């Protein structure tokens, strides 16, 4: 699995200050995508133990609320992402939250990626649609996308 970068102290990828990992590779290819350079599965650099150590080190700061997985679409690398999240929960338990951005819909994710959802707190779902673009929305780009609290299954904003 490759990653296209880490943004530490992001305020646009979920509640609070967060550390965001952009995982390379996406097949949704939405028109108007913010990060088309991350579609290629070979974009960026290999996600190694060393990278994870830096990532977890940043997240361990008190002022960081948690990890956000973005991309690309992390669910095209589901096996690696699952293992990453298992290690994340071993280290941080429930003291930090996980937000997951995906182009797949929540209903599809429940069917195909339930093990991953079990390790996440919030899902931002759906492809980006130019025609639904709204810059005033919290934590998402277009109106069709939903921010879902995975404990209750309810939309948050």
């Amino acid at each position, binding site marked *: 699995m490759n990653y296209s*970068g880490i943004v*530490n102290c992001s305020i646009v990828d979920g509640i609070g200050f967060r550390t965001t990992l952009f995982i390379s590779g996406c097949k949704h290819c939405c028109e108007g995508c913010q990060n088309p350079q991350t579609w290629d599965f070979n974009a960026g650099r290999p996600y190694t133990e060393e990278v994870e150590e830096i990532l977890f080190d940043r997240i361990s700061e008190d002022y960081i609320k948690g990890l956000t997985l973005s991309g690309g679409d992390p669910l095209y690398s589901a096996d690696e992402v699952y293992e990453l999240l298992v290690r994340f929960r071993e280290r941080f338990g429930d003291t930090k939250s996980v937000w997951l951005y995906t182009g797949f819909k929540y209903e599809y994710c429940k069917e195909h990626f339930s093990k991953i959802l079990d390790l996440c707190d919030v899902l931002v779902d759906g492809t980006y649609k130019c025609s639904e673009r709204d810059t005033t929305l919290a*934590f998402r780009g277009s109106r069709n996308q939903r921010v879902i609290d995975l404990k209750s299954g309810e939309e948050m904003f």
Partner: protein
Amino acid sequence: MKKFKNRFGVIPNVSDRAYFTNSMHVPVWEEITPFHKVDIEGQLTGYSSAGCITYVEVDSKVMNNIDALESIINYMMDSDIPYAAVNFPIDNCKDCGYSGAFEGDTCPICESENIEHLGRVTGYLSSDVRRFNYGKQSEFKERVDHEEHILI
């Protein structure tokens, strides 16, 4: 700055830009997290009786993230910062009234060019940053959002 350069010449990191940077501030172009910036400036602001405002520059989307605002303000209070501001672009359309971050000089809602870019430099607010003098505008343009980018 012109007079300074005439007398002392161009000194790297002192007079090689269109404006001076206060010695107790991390320069605006530095890529640094807001918390690291506060760690540094919190040690220095006590030596000043004025002009020591600590800025944190963030994306306009912070309007949807009150939790983040609270985190950084609490952190600044715990770090002995006496005077602080969280800056983010706010642009206003004088025709339709829309307020937000515009890309360029056009309103995203009604496409009017009758707009203003709210901004703050050296503690002074202007309803339109294009009215600041050359030095202040240069400082404003060279700012980066306070976050850290990692790719190894």
